[in-house]
């Protein structure tokens, strides 16, 4: 079975060592610093007398050098920590080695049909010990769990299921207590005489408590549960985020049906039956006889009848949930408190204004649960049916508005929830059939003929499920399923160069830009007072302003040094200042750390793994695979685009046009992005932070911050490249946020590489040849 004439690429994933943790630590440290600064400098004119303190972090390698239990100055400590982490991250990224690989990889093909054919052919068997599956989207992958062995994964999954099971069982007792004592406080009074007296005295007060307490408590639990299950699922070894959501949905549904439906409804009946049986056995009756005599089925039936009005009222009150969602009450309240009562950091304020992500698992769980309740009680209390119909009618209208105008889908799965929903619906139908069976058994004719008439139903439903599965599932999942063995010529299309595989599916830890602390602009003037010392880091005074003056290796001085206007400003480099007017998501849509959480690729920009078929070769034809250790290797990032200085690829410099016959190449965007950021070499933000955090920019090497001392002087190369490049005529276009690969022309370290603005003809920053130097130009598609 050989795709003999297809053009395919394979890439094995690299070992990223402990980079993800380091990056998380860095994120945490930055956010802590931001918070400390926001609180301390809430009123910059009146700084609090005492500087904020904090404990040194346990993960700090020099933790042992601090005296135990003593706090240190928070601002200094966090800044130091951030700097140390950045240096460390840079070192690790540089040392990621091509030879050190993980146990998974990716293979891409020129045509989709072929890939799907192969995946379909290998869906049940292994290829020399390897399982072959369709790849998820790059932003969907949970990298930490990808490297687990199958044994580790199945162990984790078992543990996860065990925890969920335990949690479900543990909740039975509190659930029952609520069911007995809180829903009807009179029961509590029966066992607690003192309370009974108070109950009689203040009947109205306790009536209100009874009306509000249990639903509020249950709602609180319902809110917390998805979070708990999601955490458990992360530890449970799921490989994709959408897969994790589906598992969370499955577990939530199981929990809800078991606890909130079965136990809640039947608890009283089970309790009384068990109590009766115990009573009987104490009087010497045989246990089995006692069970039969107590007629559990009648008790169950009567319990169901008795509890049905509660479910009707409960279903009738579900509209409130939808209405509250529509009013966005919680975000409004939360935002109000955040803005006015706590000292919010700029980052928090920006995130407040971003469109929220939609929690599919929770809502699907609720809907499935309502449907299950309604179906199960439909025979017993027909009024649940109109209640459910009313709820879903209102919900379809209001939810459509919310999805269209408010919420974004964080990770798009292409509709893979459907199978989970279908299966759960089948399950609830079977459960309803059991209830019908019970009803007809208990109240039917003595011969139970009605019950026997109902028996075939569950089996028919399950058979229906398997029929649907075999008819539809294949086509739902696979684009094409021709058996490649039999039809080797089928499914082939025009050959396309496959795009940079390892770069798209690279571990984000290798190229993800690190975040900069953001500070309110009102604090700008006072920051250099607050942030004592270390305005230089011992580097030469003569180095250009690109050098980080605060000791941050990859940030740049805020103000440009223009020819003719020498001198440094009073701004404190290393921080980013955000003015009040800019505290809105609108201005930060192109920042990966914000955009990826709130709809990049969905409502703005383009999805991260778009390729443009038909371009002569890949956009980043250059340094592929990883050459982190290769000295003088293709410069990080920029070189890739240099390839396009050769024929046909001038398109690289044009902005994405929707009029073009192909999908506007998102990669084109990146070439303009850093140029637009500011004049010449100086930027108000490091080019790193104007990149998209996605696989498209993610060369495995791109963050391999080899200090890029260019062997060739830029001047000569520039001359060369200036001649061959087209003039960049198009201005910066907002939107697609594909930034420069890697660290821009200075590489990751930010050490100056004779950075001077181009003189002469290209004073216009938009025409600055950002990717000067074409030392290692490759023919497009020349190979990996």
């Amino acid at each position, binding site marked *: 079975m050989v795709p003999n*004439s297809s*053009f395919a690429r394979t*890439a094995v994933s690299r070992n990223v060592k402990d980079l993800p943790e380091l990056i998380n630590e860095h994120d945490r440290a930055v956010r802590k610093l931001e918070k400390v600064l926001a609180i301390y400098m809430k009123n910059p004119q009146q700084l609090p007398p005492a500087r904020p303190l904090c404990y040194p972090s346990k993960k700090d390698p020099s933790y042992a050098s601090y005296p135990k239990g003593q706090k240190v100055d928070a601002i200094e400590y966090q800044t130091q920590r951030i700097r140390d982490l950045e240096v460390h991250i840079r070192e690790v990224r540089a040392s990621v080695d091509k030879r050190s690989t993980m*146990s*998974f*990889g990716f*293979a*891409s093909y020129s*045509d*989709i049909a072929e890939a799907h054919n192969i995946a379909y052919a290998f869906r049940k068997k292994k290829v*020399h010990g*390897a399982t*072959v599956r369709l790849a998820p989207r790059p932003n969907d992958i949970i990298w930490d769990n990808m490297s687990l062995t199958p*044994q580790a994964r199945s162990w984790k999954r078992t543990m996860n299921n065990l925890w969920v099971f335990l949690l479900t069982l543990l909740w039975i007792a509190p659930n029952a207590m609520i069911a007995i004592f809180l829903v*009807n406080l009179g029961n509590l009074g*029966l*066992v607690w005489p003192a309370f009974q007296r108070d109950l009689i005295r203040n009947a109205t007060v306790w009536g209100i408590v009874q009306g509000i307490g249990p639903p509020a408590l249950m709602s609180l639990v319902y809110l917390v549960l998805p979070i708990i299950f999601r955490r458990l699922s992360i530890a449970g070894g799921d490989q994709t985020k959408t897969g994790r959501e589906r598992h969370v949905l499955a577990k939530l549904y199981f929990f809800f049906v078991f606890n909130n439906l079965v136990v809640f409804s039947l608890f009283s009946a089970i309790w009384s039956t068990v109590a009766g049986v115990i009573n009987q056995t104490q009087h010497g009756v045989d246990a089995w006889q006692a069970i039969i005599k107590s007629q559990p089925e009648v008790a169950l039936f009567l319990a169901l*009848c008795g509890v049905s*009005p509660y479910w009707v*009222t409960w279903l*009738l*009150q579900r*509209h409130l949930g939808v209405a509250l969602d*529509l009013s*966005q009450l919680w975000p409004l309240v939360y935002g109000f408190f955040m803005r006015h009562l706590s000292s919010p950091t700029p980052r928090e304020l920006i995130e407040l*204004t*971003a469109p929220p992500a939609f929690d*599919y698992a929770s809502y699907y769980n609720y809907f499935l649960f309502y449907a299950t309740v309604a179906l199960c009680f*439909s025979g*017993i*209390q*027909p009024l649940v049916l109109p209640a459910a*119909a009313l709820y*879903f009618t209102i919900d379809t*209208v209001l939810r459509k*508005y919310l*999805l*269209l*105008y*408010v919420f*974004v*889908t964080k990770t*798009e799965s292409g*509709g893979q929830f459907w199978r989970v929903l279908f299966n759960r619906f089948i399950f609830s139908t079977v459960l309803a059939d059991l209830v019908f069976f019970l*009803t007809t058994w208990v*109240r039917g004719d003595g011969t139970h003929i009605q019950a026997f008439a109902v028996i075939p*139903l569950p089996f028919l439903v399950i058979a229906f499920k398997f029929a649907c599965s075999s008819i539809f599932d294949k*086509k*739902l999942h696979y684009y094409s399923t021709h058996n490649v063995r039999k039809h080797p010529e089928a499914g082939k299309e025009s050959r396309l160069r*496959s*795009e940079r*595989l390892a770069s*798209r*599916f690279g571990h984000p830890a290798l190229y993800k830009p690190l975040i900069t602390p953001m500070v309110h602009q009102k604090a700008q003037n006072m920051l250099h007072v607050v942030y004592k010392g270390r305005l230089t880091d011992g580097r030469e005074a003569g180095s250009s302003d690109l050098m980080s003056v605060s000791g941050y290796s990859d940030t740049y001085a805020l103000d440009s040094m223009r020819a003719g206007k020498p001198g440094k400003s009073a701004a404190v480099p290393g921080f980013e200042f955000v003015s009040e007017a800019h505290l809105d998501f609108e201005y930060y849509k192109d920042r990966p750390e914000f955009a990826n959480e709130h709809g990049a690729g969905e409502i703005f920009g383009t999805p991260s*793994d778009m*390729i443009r078929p038909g371009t002569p070769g890949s956009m980043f034809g250059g340094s*592929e695979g990883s050459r982190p250790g290769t000295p003088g290797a293709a410069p990080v990032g920029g070189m890739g685009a240099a390839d396009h200085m050769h024929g046909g690829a001038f398109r690289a410099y044009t902005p994405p046009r929707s009029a073009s016959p*192909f999908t506007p190449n998102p990669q084109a965007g990146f070439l303009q992005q850093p140029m637009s950021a500011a004049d010449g070499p100086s930027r108000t933000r490091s080019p790193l932070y104007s990149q998209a955090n996605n696989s498209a920019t993610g060369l495995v090497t791109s963050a391999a911050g080899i200090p890029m001392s260019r062997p060739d002087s830029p001047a000569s190369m520039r001359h060369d490249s200036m001649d061959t490049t087209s003039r960049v005529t198009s201005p910066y276009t907002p939107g697609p946020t594909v930034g420069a690969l890697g660290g821009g022309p200075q590489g990751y370290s930010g050490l100056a590489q004779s950075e001077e603005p181009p003189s002469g003809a290209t004073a216009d920053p938009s025409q600055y040849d950002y990717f000067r130097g074409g030392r290692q130009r490759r023919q497009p598609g020349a*190979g*990996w």
Partner: protein
Amino acid sequence: MPQSAFFGADQTPFCALQLQTTSIWTALGTSLGFTAGIAILFSLLRPYNQAVYAPRLKHADEKHAPPPIGKKIWSWVKPLWNSSEAEMVGYVGMDATIFLRFTRMCRNIFVVLTVLGCGILIPINVKYVDQATKPESWLAVITPSNVWGSAQWAQVVFAYITNLTVCGFLWWNYRKVLALRRKYFESEEYQNSLHARTLMVCWSITCFFSSVPRVNHILAPVSTLG
């Protein structure tokens, strides 16, 4: 002493509710009233708070923007009415479209079942209730708890109707979802994406080093292993 009180306590904790048949009307009234009130409040607030009530409209670029809404109070209803499912896929993506389709399916199922269920079960339960043990509240009367014997054939009929309805709607929607998905496969976004044409290969670590070249040979014989 408490123990027998516990055992002897009324075992149906919902007896209070059971007697309060008015509680259903109360629940219906309050929830509908509250929902209507919030909807009206929302309509009033919406035109002035685009950041909160229409952030997608604010932040989306032209390619993905949802249909624009006017500033009038009720103008948010019109785009909902007018956008078809095919348009919705373009606006909100597959996941959200299937979410809405699932919700609509539930609504349709329960509307049909309401008509048939209440139409069949309630009259029969009311008519054939055992007069000797007829309960007080009408809520209990419409349950089958006091209906004996051959009147339960209605339950059987309704059981079959329920299963048929549910399975029918599931089948219908499965076909629709399949059509949506095939259309998604043909969409520009999918056709131009890399993950669509990529396979993920996972090894169990033991046979990794020997099998990589062999797997590579099978999956991508023309290329070299990157």
